């Protein structure tokens, strides 16, 4: 909590918040990091295995195998979400299962499942990207900025 926010609190509120802090359970950060590392690593290992599967059995090179791998991983995470397993993985792994592309698939499909009682157009269609929408927006926006910077640098002859 920033100091700026603290200033707005009355002394009574500050005193209470100090008292409350004592009882508050802290997130076990180190433990969470280790879990995230292990689960995230396992997800990447599976992804690597799928990549090699595509290289061995299909006409994909290391470079082009990325696309079908991502699609497969998202598909798997969608199935896991639908069967109600992914949220349990998420509670255990935290960032480990949220950061890989599977987390993106999960955020899309969980929102779609959640709102299917409101119908396909306004429910599923309108809410599917409720969580993933920001990822897409800021992902595209930052890609645009990076591309712009690179183009300018190339034009100026720096790169």
């Amino acid at each position, binding site marked *: 909590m920033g100091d700026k926010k603290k200033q707005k609190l009355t002394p009574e509120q500050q005193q209470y918040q100090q008292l409350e802090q004592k009882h508050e359970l802290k*997130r*076990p950060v180190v433990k969470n990091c280790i879990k995230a590392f292990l689960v995230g690593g396992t997800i990447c290992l599976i992804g690597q295995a799928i990549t090699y599967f595509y290289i061995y059995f299909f006409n994909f090179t290391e470079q082009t195998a990325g696309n079908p791998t991502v699609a497969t991983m998202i598909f798997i995470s969608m199935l896991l979400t639908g069967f109600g397993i992914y949220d349990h993985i*998420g509670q255990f792994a935290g960032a480990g299962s949220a950061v890989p592309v599977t987390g993106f698939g999960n*955020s899309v499909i969980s929102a779609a499942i959640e*709102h299917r009682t409101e119908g396909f157009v306004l429910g599923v269609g309108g809410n599917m990207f409720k969580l993933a929408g920001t990822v897409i927006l800021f992902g595209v926006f930052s890609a645009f900025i990076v591309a712009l910077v690179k183009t300018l640098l190339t034009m100026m002859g720096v790169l």
Partner: protein
Amino acid sequence: MLIGRQSWQFANRPVIESWASSGGPFEAEGNLAADFDILHDDLWMGQDSYEKAHRHLLEEAINSALQKVNLSKEDMHFMLAGDLINQITPSSFAARTMQIPYFGLFGACSTSMEGLALASFIVNYQGAKKTITGASSHNSAVEKQFRYPTEYGGQKPPTAQWTVTGAGAAVVTDNPDKSGKPVTTSATIGKVVDMGLSDPFNMGGAMAPAAADTIISHFKDLNIEPSYYDLIVTGDLGRIGQETTYELLHQSGLNITRNQFQDCGLLIYKDDQPVQSGGSGAGCSASVLYGHLLNQMKKGVYNRILVVATGALLSPLSFQQKESIPCIAHAVSIEMN
């Protein structure tokens, strides 16, 4: 009768004639499964949306409470109910089914005691002979509104709480035959307390000062000691909120023993259930009181209890706009006659 600053004493001692609770699959695995009248093994409960299942829970609890004393819904003069969903539709839609004159209440998770206090007040002053009051919540419906989608794999911090899927309802009457029945003797209406906390994943910490404020006011208004009660039970403070409230009460000089002070949100689930800090939701205090606690009173385990239901009066909009969480608590004293 008004007593002190913010309390009512019910001289005519309204009777809690019957009570019933219903719950979902997660509650069926919990500590108090035996005290639920109806338990579902499916969150959908045979309905096609969670909101309908939510309404269904309340209807079942009300019907079951009525059946126990052979009353029909036509015998009820008023119904007081509420929940956490937008515009309290599950309760209002249940009232449409029931066709009982209806007050819709919103006090977040404190709705159960708000309802019981008002029902007792109405009955005490002959505003009605028989009323029914209840509160409910449904995990999936409430999480959908306040948090992320239920299947979303976000990590909940250890301060988070699990919304109870459950409903509780009680029939409050002016029956002159009060022997062996629980009666409401007094109620304290809380004021909104805001200590500036703004983390929606730590409701217990936000609600603790409201609970403490109401409990302190209760003892001051009625001029009694905490030892008067066998049990002081809070609604859904959870682990953190309960510890904090206990410390606040001690600081204020109230002499409450640790065993005397419990929390519905901690009673309802087993320790090994993944609920982080405990249960929460309007259905939490309602289903525990109108099930476990009143059953225990009937068995003679407790004679006098003070139920303090706490509510966090936030909306998904207000916390996204970085507003702090205002909280409230209402207390009702229940005694065996």
